[in-house]
């Protein structure tokens, strides 16, 4: 360290902590509003509940610009390949949140046309129960995801490419 720089104030941090701190506070959600849960997701994004407080207000219309997939609503078997493709189009690192009982396990539709849980096609990080979950519930789920991200070790992936967390 040169003489000049040593006189400047600086902070020391583990790379993992620094990276996850940035990741968890700037999640860009890709909202897939598949059913009534979408209304609660929209309310969560709007002024009253305002997830801008968590750095998450930037709902993207393209999966390529998002790193959080909020599956809000009923996934039908016909929609399932589309959901899987959208997930594959999201760049790593990425997380998925299953919002509502339908996305978790088919909800009240144990039928021929509904996928019995979105975790059959994409890896889900956080499940938010409810029919639909309240905005408070979704925010709790997002904060749980933040805690999960804070516990992760992104540098592991840099050092060991085989340790990629997603499918």
């Amino acid at each position, binding site marked *: 360290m040169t003489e000049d720089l040593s006189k400047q104030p600086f902070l020391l941090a583990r790379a993992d902590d620094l990276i996850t701190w940035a990741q968890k506070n700037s999640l860009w959600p890709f909202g897939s509003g598949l059913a009534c849960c979408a209304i609660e997701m929209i309310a969560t994004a709007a002024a009253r509940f305002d997830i801008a407080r968590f750095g998450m207000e930037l709902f993207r219309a393209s999966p390529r610009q998002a790193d959080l997939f909020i599956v809000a609503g009923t996934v039908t*078997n*016909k929609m399932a390949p589309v959901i899987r493709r959208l997930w594959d189009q999201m760049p790593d690192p990425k997380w998925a949140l299953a919002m509502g009982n339908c996305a978790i*396990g*088919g909800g009240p539709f*144990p*039928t*021929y*046309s509904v996928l*019995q849980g979105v975790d059959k096609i994409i890896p889900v990080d956080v499940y938010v129960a409810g029919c639909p979950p309240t905005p408070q519930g979704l925010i709790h789920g997002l904060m749980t995801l933040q805690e999960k991200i804070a516990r992760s070790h992104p540098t592991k992936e840099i050092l060991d490419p085989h340790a990629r967390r997603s499918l």
Partner: protein
Amino acid sequence: MPDAASDRFEIRQAVDQLSARFPGEVLAVAVEKGETAVHLGKKGLILVLRFLKEELGFNALEDIVVLDNLRTAAEGGPRFTVLYQVGRFPAAVRLRLAVAVGEDEILDSAVPVYRSADWAEREAYDMFGLRFDGHPDLRRIYMPEDFEGHPLRKDFPLQGRDGGV
């Protein structure tokens, strides 16, 4: 019910005209809950539809509905009943045609008469496996293309093939 739809003059007139024109095809005229259904033979269906549209002014085929008579079919009855709901607008006169079809029988398509039959017949094909001769594009309309079976048939497993929950 004095104000029941079946008591309307226009409907009685239409049913009388149908019976007079197609004595061999009109099998029965049933009134249930105030609504009139004309039971037809399979062969006369398109002729009757064309007559209703071109001469009696029924300008809309509103829907095609299929009933699966699984239980009575086991006793020798027809497997399906296909209901054609036609309407005359703006007077809002409605009439129902009923045709009995067996499991392996093919109905004539109503698309040449009413273009609105296109998607309705695709739905009947998708959900019940009914086939329509002369339909321009008989594909599934709701289910994925690789789906097997016809889910609204009563012998289709209620929770789907993969076990549902």
